[in-house]
């Protein structure tokens, strides 16, 4: 039983992790909290759904299109919210308010375009296969979720650590002013960062819809808050921390459902956040001091 919950927690956590990594990436590189990330997550799920439903393409294609569309939405938020605000030297919370406003527009638009009822991915998408390992029922879907999460995050890690562009990104993360001075293409880094984080959010959206068999215009709201929780857990701007934090949150939530029942599941994460903010504000996994908040 415990092992079963462990597997469930991991796959839930994998989705949280993918979402949170995108979230924390933007913070780490560009020092902003993009609160439209939840709405992008939702749109990714819908785009994937439409690709399968209307175009009758397989899941892999749907995922690819969703990643692309969500990435573009990420770039949109850079273009109409964060870039003008940064140019103006506006205070930090303006970015938060602005991205929330954008989220509202996106949610309203999704309701308008896709309707307000909860829908689900077509049956063909759901990988019904399940495997019994050591008395634990591991759904094919859960394995896929975990695998996709790992692949996406590792790919991102490789990009950051091993490529030239990754080095440029890390320079900008260190200091945008310095990056400009050394002639780094800051504008391109900004766009790329927002694209990647948007894509990750969209990918997480597709995974979530598959795991939980539901898509609705409001699915992003709770996940956004969960994403913030993971950010705190793992340390703002810490990609590895977001991965670990996401998995941890998934496990904690599933564990809490077992312990105190489903009603308080969402509160557990927030309680954890408050606790951490009060004792170790830099996050459980962060070693360096949070220099920016």
């Amino acid at each position: 039983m415990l092992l079963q919950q462990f597997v469930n927690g991991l796959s839930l956590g994998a989705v949280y992790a993918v979402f949170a990594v995108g979230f924390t990436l933007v913070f780490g590189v560009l020092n902003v909290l993009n609160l439209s990330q939840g709405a992008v997550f939702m749109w990714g799920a819908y785009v994937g759904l439409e690709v399968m439903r209307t175009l009758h393409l397989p899941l892999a294609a749907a995922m690819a299109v969703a990643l692309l569309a969500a990435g573009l939405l990420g770039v949109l938020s850079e273009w109409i919210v964060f870039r003008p605000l940064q140019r103006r030297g506006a205070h930090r919370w303006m970015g938060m308010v602005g991205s929330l406003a954008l989220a509202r527009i996106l949610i309203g638009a999704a309701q308008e375009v896709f309707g307000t009822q909860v829908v689900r991915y077509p049956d063909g998408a759901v990988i019904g296969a399940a495997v019994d390992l050591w008395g634990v029922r591991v759904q094919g879907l859960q394995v896929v979720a975990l695998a996709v999460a790992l692949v996406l995050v590792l790919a991102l890690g490789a990009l950051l650590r091993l490529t030239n562009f990754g080095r440029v990104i890390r320079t900008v993360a260190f200091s945008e002013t310095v990056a400009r001075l050394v002639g780094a293409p800051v504008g391109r880094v900004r766009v790329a960062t927002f694209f990647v984080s948007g894509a990750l959010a969209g990918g997480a959206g597709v995974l979530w819809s598959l795991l939980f068999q539901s898509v609705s215009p409001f699915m992003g709201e709770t996940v956004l808050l969960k994403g913030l929780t993971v950010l705190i857990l793992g340390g703002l701007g810490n990609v590895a921390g977001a991965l670990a934090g996401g998995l941890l949150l998934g496990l904690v939530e599933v564990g809490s459902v077992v312990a105190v029942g489903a009603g308080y599941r969402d509160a557990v994460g927030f309680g954890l956040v408050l606790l951490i903010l009060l004792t170790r504000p830099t996050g459980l996994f962060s070693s360096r001091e949070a220099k920016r908040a």
Partner: protein
Amino acid sequence: MIDLYYAYENVIDLCLLNAVLAFACLLLLGVNLLSLATGGLMALGAYLSIWLTMQKGWSFGPALLAATLLGSLAAAGLGALVLRLRGDYFAMATLAFTEVVRILTLNWDSVTGGALGVFGIPKLTETWQLAALLLLVVYLVWAIRNSAIGDRMRAVAEDELAVTASGHDVARLKRALFTASGAIAGLGGALAAHLNMFVAPGDFGFLRSMDAVLAPVLGGVWNLFGAAIGAAILTLLPELLRFSAQWREILIGAVTLLAVLFLPTGVASLPRRLLRGAHPGRIA
């Protein structure tokens, strides 16, 4: 005809209430504090007051007082914990608070009625009460902003260290402002609950907190009355667009975004410029 009148009365009441909450947020924005705890604090005031009037037979006045007290105590307690956190962390902690309250009210069925909410709340809130409260709050904010304390707040928004070096306990100032905003939020929650005869946990969540903060940002470019103007805009828009809930959301989002982008703030942060507008003749 009578229905039309009552419909308008409700809108006016909502405008007044939202304006009151907007001023509570304005106080905090004046020292660069973005608090999303308004929803949670409102919920506490709302549910306590309902419990008192409906289950304990209290009259409205004392119930309102109790709600105000609970709001201040909760804010004082929360503030002691989270005010020392920096910018983003503070906002997130207040958001976590609102969410925790929401989930607690969702689950505490016996007192709060759970997800279904509470029906049949007596409509005790009247327009004159809201108007009087708004006038009081406006006066208080005006009196404070136009005094040495107001100068101190403006200074804190600009440079906390300078204020500390001048011999003032900035943390205590923030705690006082936060407690005051908690009192207003608690009272506002109680008034809101007895206005629409029905409450549910979802009424006091993330969106409620955001709307309270958006109002001063929206209307704020003019002066002290900006918070009220912003609240009026945010309240009236949904009424004007009755025909589509979806487009209502899109429009609110768009208007807010435009306000954020195009308010002429320059390098200075908005609340400072907004509240600086209390001095006539100063360039916006």
